[in-house]
Structure formats: C-alpha cells, structure tokens
C-alpha cells in the first residue's frame, strides 16, 4: 500500500516461487503446495484493493500539503523543475486508490526536498507552519502503517527458519 504497490510485489513473489523455489522441491506433494501458493498470491491483489479506502484520508491530506507546497514554491524564481511534478501529480486521475497513494507519497518526497532546497527564498512563517503540518501527517501515516502491517521476524529468517 506504500510506494511499492501490492501488484508489483505479488508479481515478483509468484515469479520467485515458480522460477526458483518450485523446481527445488523434491516431492510432487510439495510442488502441488507451491502451485497453490502461486495461485493464491496471484489473486491477492484484488482483495487488497478492497481495503484501499483506508488510504483515502491520508491521500486527501497529502493533496492538501502538496497544494500548499505548490503555492509557496510558486513564489520562487527557478523552482519550476520542482513545481512540475507536483502539478502533474495533483492533476492525475487514477482509478486505483493504491496507485494514487503511492504516487502522492513519491511526490511528497520531492516536495519536501524542494522546500529544503529553496528554504532561504521562501516565506519563513508559511514554511514553518507547513513543516509542522508535514511532520504531523508523516507521524499519522506511520502510525497507520504500523497498525496495518505485521512486524518482520528477522531473526527467524536469518537463522534459516
């Protein structure tokens, strides 16, 4: 649900299971299990789209932040290259809430960079207020992500299961 979309991740996972893992499995039963996993993974993306409305409030706030950033940056001569992708993202129409959220996050990254880059030429008060708003949004987004995803069991992976 983040910058990298579930579709992309699932496509690669199914490829890996088919290309690298299935061929190494020693019995027909285990190979049938891996085929079943591939089928399940292939169908999961659609299920995820059903949950995508969770992203809507975050996307709305990112749009608001980007509009404010666009306004502040528009006052700076030479900031055209920074403004262009913000305008493009704000003007996009996507049928997928997941794709839209990913694009907004990516553009917000570039907008924050531009705000730092042009800092000395921007309206200090508006910039300070926007920075606070950005940080509050990022904290909320992080808390939401942390509530959705499960922690990674790195230790178990690294010791080989």
């Amino acid at each position, binding site marked *: 649900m983040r*910058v990298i979309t579930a579709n992309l991740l699932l496509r690669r996972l199914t490829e890996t299971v088919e290309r690298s893992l299935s061929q190494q499995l020693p019995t027909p039963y285990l190979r049938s299990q891996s085929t079943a996993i591939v089928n399940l993974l292939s169908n999961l993306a659609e299920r995820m789209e059903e949950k995508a409305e969770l992203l809507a409030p975050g996307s709305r706030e990112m749009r608001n932040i980007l509009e404010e950033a666009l306004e502040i940056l528009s006052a700076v001569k030479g900031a055209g290259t920074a403004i262009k992708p913000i305008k493009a993202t704000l003007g996009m129409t996507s049928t997928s809430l997941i794709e839209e959220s990913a694009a907004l996050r*990516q553009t917000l990254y570039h907008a*924050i960079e531009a705000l730092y880059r042009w800092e000395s030429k921007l309206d200090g008060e508006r910039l300070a207020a926007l920075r606070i708003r950005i940080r509050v949004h990022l*904290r909320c987004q*992080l808390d939401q992500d942390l509530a959705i995803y*499960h922690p990674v069991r790195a*230790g*178990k992976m690294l*010791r080989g299961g």
Partner: protein
Amino acid sequence: MFLGVTSLSGVINQASSLPFEQRLISYLSTKLPEAREISISGLTQATEGLSYETYLFQASWHQAGKKMIQGYAVRLQPLWGPVPPYDVEPQFRILQSLYGTAVPVPRVFWMEKDTGILGAPFFIMKKVEGEIPLPWKSAKGSYNDPGQRELMAREVVRVLAALHTVDWKARDIDFLPPPATPTSYAQREIKRWEAIQKENEYLAEPILAEAYGWLKAHIPRAPRTTLVHGDYRLGNFIWRENRIAAFLDWEMVALGDPLSDIGWMCMKVFQGHTGKVNGLMDRDEFLSSYEKLSGIHPNPESVLWWEVFGYVKLMAILSAGLRAYIDGRRDDVRLAIFEFDALSHLNLLAQTLGF
C-alpha cells in the same frame, strides 16, 4: 552425496555446469600445488547476511605424506544487492592489512576478480571457529548468558577503540581515500547513500526527505580521521573463549569519522527491547568506556547526527535490496521483506528526529 548448492543470487549456477564443490576443488588445486587428493565436505551457505554470499566448507588433502585439514569461508560478491556498488577488493585488502593487529580479523588467503572461476569475484579466508552471538539464536547461546554479555560488552568497546586508533598512515591502506576536511566524510556519505536511495525509489518514503534535509543542515566535524568499519555491531563478530575471535563484514570499511561507528552502534534498531547499546550496555557506559580507551570524545550532537544518518543509510540499503528483488536481479525472497522491515526503521528515525 553432496549434489551442489543453490545460490540465492543465481551467480553460482550461471558460471558453469560443474557443481560448485568441483569448482572449488579445481581452484584450490591451483593454489595448493603440493596438495594431492583434495576433497571438500560440509559445504553450506551461511544464512546470516543478505549482501555477500558466504559459503563454509572443510577441505582435506594429502601433502608430503601428511593428511591436512583446513576450514575455509568463501565470500562471493553479488552482482546486485543491498550495498552497491560492489567491489571485493577493499574488503580483502583491509583484512590483509589488519591481520595481526589488535583488531581481530580472519586470515585471508586468495582473492579473484575473474568471474569464470566461481561465477563472481570472491575471496577465500580461514574459517574462524566460534559463535556469532545473537539474541534469537538459542536460549543456550552466549548472548543469553549475563556473564558472557558483560564480557562481550567490554570486548566490543575494546576492539572498536583498537580499530579507531590503528595508525592507518603507517599501514598499506592506500586503497581507501582519506577525507580532505573534517566534514568531507559526512558529506561524501550523504551523497553516496542519497544517490543509492534515489536510484532505488521503491522506498522513497517522505520521512527520508525530511531526514536528508535535516542532515544536510547540520553536518558534523570529525574529531579525527580513522578507519571505520561501517557496520560495527552485534551479529558481525565471532565469539570464542570469552573474546572476539574475528570481526566480519568489512564491505563498508572506509577512512572517515570514528563517530559514524558510534552513532551506528547507538541506533535503537540494534537494541532489541533491551534499551541497551546492542543489547549489551547502557549508552553512557558505552560512550565513557569508548572515550577512555580511544581518547576520542564522542560529542553527543555528532553521535545523534550519525544515528539519524544510520537510519537513512539503512533505508538506502533496504531500497537497493528491494530493487534488486523487484527487478528480478536477485531471487532471495528475504529482500522482499525489506518493504515491511522498513516501517520499524522509519518509526525509529522519526522518533530520533523528534516527531
């Protein structure tokens, strides 16, 4: 019978139709011309580490009427992975340079850049016996013994201070460029890892842009130029008989700011749930023991800067690993997990930055 190994990056299987074991035997026979009837046993791929591929094995042979046995570790350079750009040479040469100093490292034997031998550049070193202590490895592991942990804490500081006080100018370390000014190393590191982050935009989280903005506005001055490990922490050393027998994973070694290793060590991500530096010691205790042994003052603002930097570096590493997986250059599914693993790092980064 051992039939061969599956390389997670696929490099081994692309090199030749010969099993990996056979290729190793052929290579050893060119390096040990007096050896007869070389055989290999116990060939296994280490699961720790997601960058270089490490294979452990035991070689036996006859030489001048005697049976010889030697444990080896071979480190293969991946084509793609979490810590680009890849070059096996600095790692090999630093191990050569440090061998025999107060910084314990494995003895290295041979390095090859010819990809026709094993499928990728590699080096071979002596297998160091012992344990890599980690909290999750085993309840009976040395990390879970309080007495051993205390000894480990002292050793970790002793070896770090030894590394940072190596007289690098007196050793053959011309392959590592020294920073030109006290801020050059920090600037170079920012440039390097931000470029990696940008090349691999899959984890282009907006928090990172905030962090890079803050880092660039507060570049610290290095107290001096020293050798730095780049990934100095629990999990990267072998423990045997109450001491560090060897420090491993030198792929990010550089001449730079010693406080970069201190900040890296202090990152909460390496604390587990203990609240202690590397799960071993209190932060104040760590910093004061380090200062006493090294003579280097760990300025708190600089340490904080390197901690924040540590998270952006970690995120760049995750991005590069994830990219290698998503683009189909590596088939190690553990790299896909980086997508979710990144969340806890971002959370700690935000906390360290104060939001």
